[in-house]
């Protein structure tokens, strides 16, 4: 009943703090690049799945309707999938069910975010993700919830800020090789430690920037994919999970929702020992500690052990388990949904051996991309194979 689904093309725009393009135009640029790279035209596409985070960024109510012509969705079945920050990785999952179900043979999946319209700062939109009666009156910011989680994580496993800073150093360094990156830079742990505290323990360089950008992939059924390319990348496992709304009732030290989502994807892909079987991973890194947190949830590191793995260099591009070889959100930028899709694109290029200067040293056959979202609540996971 379930059909095998492949990624056959990918596209991405520059990620920048402010772009001239409208959300439609950004979507067009990424979609067109994905079509061109797959050798397809819009006529070959049967359905469209889009992803974008809150309407409060782009500044259009029901933005899934507004931008759809930029995604080539006129006259086509289009659905916008939405799980907060998890949306980027969830967008190709939406495409996956369009194709795996047998309903469509080709699906264009586009993620777009234009955060710059919101003034004075895109961060403001995050105030309205909190409970309107019990939390917003306190003047909540997204930074609070991250710093509270980071503190709890550090406390439970005795992790030092310096160890966490290694992630920012690695990812911003990796991003130097990404032509679309916003914040690629060679920095040191000291730079991170000395950057201004914004919401302690979170400091300026622990955080990814707000950005504008779009990214896209094209999915095809097995039959179509084999006709199109001799290098399909198979989307063999997908998983997603949402935890309770009541984030203050949970142990913030461990992302159980990521574990559940990962196990769903691993089961589907037939992965028994993820640490051995996954060759390259792009976990979600809007904050540096999040990469570590997620590696543990993904079962790629034991609980509290991801920092040591990072310090030991295991997660470097030439390491045993390269993590965020793209440069991640910390380096490439964080146009929310598009950033998750950037990770899908990266694994696609890594598994095809097309990542150029970013290509990991080991022979990567199986890759993983993951995103997180909402109130420390959503995990979205995909497992891909060459």
């Amino acid at each position, binding site marked *: 009943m379930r059909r095998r689904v492949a990624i056959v093309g990918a596209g991405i725009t520059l990620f920048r703090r402010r772009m001239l393009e409208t959300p439609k135009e950004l979507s067009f640029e990424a979609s067109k690049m994905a079509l061109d790279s797959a050798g397809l035209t819009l006529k070959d596409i049967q359905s469209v799945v889009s992803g974008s985070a809150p309407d409060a960024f782009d500044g259009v109510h029901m933005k899934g309707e507004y931008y759809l012509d930029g995604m080539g969705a*006129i006259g086509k079945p289009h659905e916008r999938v939405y799980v907060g920050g998890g949306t980027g990785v969830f967008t190709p999952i939406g495409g996956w069910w369009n194709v795996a179900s047998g309903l469509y043979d080709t699906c264009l999946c586009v993620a777009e975010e234009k955060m710059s319209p919101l003034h004075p700062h895109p961060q403001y939109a995050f105030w309205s993700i909190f409970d309107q009666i019990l939390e917003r009156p306190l003047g909540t910011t997204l930074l609070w919830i991250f710093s509270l989680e980071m503190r709890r994580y550090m406390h439970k496993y005795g992790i030092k800020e310096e160890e966490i800073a290694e992630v920012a150093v690695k990812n911003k360094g990796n991003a130097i090789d990404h032509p679309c990156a916003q914040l690629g830079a060679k920095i040191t742990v000291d730079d991170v430690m000395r950057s201004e505290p914004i919401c302690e323990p979170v400091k300026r360089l622990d955080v990814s920037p707000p950005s504008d950008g779009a990214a896209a992939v094209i999915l095809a059924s097995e039959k179509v994919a084999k006709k199109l390319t001799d290098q399909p990348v198979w989307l063999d496992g997908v998983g997603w999970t949402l935890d309770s709304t009541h984030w203050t009732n949970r142990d913030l030290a461990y992302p159980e929702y990521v574990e559940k989502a990962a196990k769903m994807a691993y089961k589907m892909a037939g992965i028994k020992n993820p640490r051995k079987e996954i060759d390259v991973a792009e976990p979600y890194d809007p904050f540096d500690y999040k990469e570590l947190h997620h590696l543990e949830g993904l079962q790629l590191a034991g609980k509290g052990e991801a920092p040591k793995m990072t310090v030991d260099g295991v997660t470097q591009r030439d390491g045993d388990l390269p993590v965020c070889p793209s440069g991640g959100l910390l380096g490439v930028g964080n146009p929310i949904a598009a950033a998750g899709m950037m990770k899908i694109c990266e694994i696609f290029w890594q598994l095809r051996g097309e990542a150029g200067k970013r290509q990991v040293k080991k022979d990567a056959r199986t890759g993983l991309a993951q995103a997180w979202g909402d109130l420390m609540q959503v995990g979205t996971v995909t497992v891909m194979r060459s």
Partner: protein
Amino acid sequence: MTPGLSTRELMFEAASRAYEDAGIDPRKDVQSFVCCTEDFWEGISITDEYMPDQLGAVLRPLCTISSDGIIGLATACMHIMSGIADVAVVESHSKISDVVNPDEIASFGYDPIYTHHHFDADPRFLAGMEMARYLKDTGTKREYCAQVAVKNKKNALSNSRGVHGANIDKGIVMNSPVAASPLTELESSRGIDASIVFVLASAQKARKLGKHPVWIRGIGWSSDTPVVEDRDFARAEYVEQAAARAYKMANVKSPASYFDLAEVDDTYSYKELQSLEALRLAPKGKAGKMVDTGVFDVDGRLPVNASGGSLGVGHLLEATGLHRTLEAVMQLRGQAGRLQVPRAKRALVQSWRGIPTATGAVAVLGN
């Protein structure tokens, strides 16, 4: 209005009833949950945060589809067809009574550069312009639109959910205040509150769960251009496309004679006519006359919006499509009470996402 329940409590009320009806435990039996919402209708950015607990979906796959409930049903179907679920749940709701300035929110859906910021008008200006052009291009008489409101509001009097039911004539409808000429206020549906939950199951599982399965035989959805200036106002092209997909899947060759009843979009009176033509339930330009002569009355050849539709019951934002589906399911199960269409076996449901969209969905249901 539902002033005594929060959105989440309203959802729990609907979900617990749906699960009891299906005989399932959401903590064990459901593999996927789908919610259809839009942020600004809720006053929350990222509304899926507030969805899992009251649906029994904690630590389970749940996602938002920012669209109408029928597209949510289509998503659940795809989850079942791709083998990741044998039972899936779809929820959508309206809590419009929580929203103080809904017209301003609806306006915010227009293109910010070209269709919004340079004037300050009731967002239904688009409905008025569409209706005017529809009447002109099809030669439909203006009073036929009023008859849609007359019919649906009358039908709603027999529906326990029919908040906006009324026994009025065309004169009252046409003389009610102008919303966006020629559209009047009584031809424009009003928002109400509700949460609607559906439990979907694979064929195999449905047979085990027994009770009263209603089958989704075909489903389709489509979007016309979001650029309102590019559209043909006389036609609902998105409905034509969505219907073509649903009919193909259900192998419906002659829709006009296939169905026993239809629940179609009547957000505004003229929308019902436009939709009936796009669904091929009426020839182009003939839907108005057919409504006027009673073809689509409860006792007519094809009852359309026997429930009262959005004009008679109320508009439910993204849950509108689920409302239509609910009314059709009750009919197919023979549980529609005073609304019951005799021997109803095949039903058509269709929805539109409202201004300023050109997105809609169609489902073919049967027992």
